[in-house]
């Protein structure tokens, strides 16, 4: 039952996000558009390039979707609305998200196309940039909660949300989450302008539909993770807990889309440089500030 509800919420959020994304790009609000688009993809030819690494080519979209779904499975929507409340939930989500890299590199390597290949290797550079900014802020969150259990992390924010307690960590995590989901302005592996679609370029038909669904789902999962780690998860007045979780998750996801809409794509070299020169020192400072706060303020 829980599984069905969480998966439905995940799928519903992905659909809503697709509608909003269409609204932002075309100016028309058409709720059925994602459905039509999905059906159209189903009917189109799904071409396999001439000398593919077939295993990688086929595995990439599926793996990306599995990763997004598994990430969502360890995040709570309400105190008892969680599929698997693992003892190491905060660590598990890191482990799951590490496979986003694997999936993108597979999608780059698999079709044996120049643009896709460049996109895939670019994402490896992107991982080296963002990955520390995912794990270090989560450490600071776990320090406050004294636990890696995701429900305990939300409970620890009952009095004060982490976005107030450690705003620096929130900003770093938000940016890194966008880079992990390769949304604009961090869409280096797909870069429509300079790579002609990059890792998306060789996927057509139903495989492309699965890849797009996986990317939307990944955004929802990351927005949900931001909610759980920083926005107090299900906490909020008046409305039931699950409603708060969903509203916050959608708000984070939409703000990710909005930020991407108004910023130019960043260069790989600049992204890595800023992440290492500014981002990682700030993440360490965040850990030390939170450490002092925990000891000084009871």
């Amino acid at each position, binding site marked *: 039952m829980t599984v069905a509800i969480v998966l439905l919420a995940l799928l519903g959020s992905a659909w809503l996000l697709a509608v909003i994304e269409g609204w932002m790009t075309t100016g028309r609000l058409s709720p059925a558009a994602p459905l039509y688009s999905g059906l159209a993809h189903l009917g189109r030819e799904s071409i396999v390039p001439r000398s593919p690494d077939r295993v990688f080519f086929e595995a990439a979209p599926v793996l990306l979707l599995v990763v997004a779904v598994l990430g969502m499975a360890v995040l709570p929507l309400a105190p008892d609305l969680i599929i698997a409340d693992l003892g190491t939930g905060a660590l598990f989500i890191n482990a799951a998200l590490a496979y986003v890299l694997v999936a993108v590199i597979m999608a780059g390597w698999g079709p044996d196309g*120049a643009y896709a290949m460049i996109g895939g290797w670019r994402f490896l550079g992107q991982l080296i940039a963002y990955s520390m900014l995912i794990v270090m802020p989560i*450490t600071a969150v776990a320090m406050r909660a004294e636990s*890696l259990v995701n429900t305990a992390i939300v409970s620890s924010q009952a009095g004060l949300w982490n976005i107030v307690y450690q705003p620096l960590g929130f900003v770093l995590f938000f940016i890194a989450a966008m880079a992990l989901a390769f949304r604009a302005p961090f869409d280096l592996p797909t870069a429509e302008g300079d790579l002609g679609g990059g890792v998306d370029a060789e996927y057509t038909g139903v495989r492309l539909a699965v890849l797009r669904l996986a990317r939307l789902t990944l955004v929802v999962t990351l927005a949900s993770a931001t909610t759980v780690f920083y926005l107090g998860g299900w906490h909020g007045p008046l409305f039931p807990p699950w409603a708060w979780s969903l509203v916050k998750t959608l708000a984070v996801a939409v703000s990710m889309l909005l930020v991407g809409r108004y910023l130019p794509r960043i260069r790989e070299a600049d992204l890595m440089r800023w992440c290492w020169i500014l981002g990682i020192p700030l993440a360490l400072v965040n850990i*030390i500030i939170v*450490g002092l706060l*925990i000891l000084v303020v009871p």
Partner: protein
Amino acid sequence: MSGTQQYLLLLGMALGTVGVVLSLYGLARIMGPAQREPGKDVPASSGVLSRDPVWGRYHARYYGYALLFLAFDMEMAFMYPWAVVYKEVGMVALLDMGVFLAILFLGLLYGWSQGAFRRQ
């Protein structure tokens, strides 16, 4: 739910997702296969078929970062258990990890001074 059951559930979800995707592929297959036409399966490369293996096209210019990344990634393995017991252990924990982080941070500064944060 016990730990084993939770992991079994996660495994089931992974397999279920794969199953859903495979059934979508099956559905698309029923609606008709891709027609074989010459030149259709050439990867996007501005109409020119590249003869070399394409992986020769990309030079990983971020290897300076990659080496530093290894050091920091190892450190994170220690950070998670440390974070859980941090409040319990108190000031000593902060000092322990502080010294460790300071050494790592010095490495970062040294790497910076040697031009590790430059695209090679």
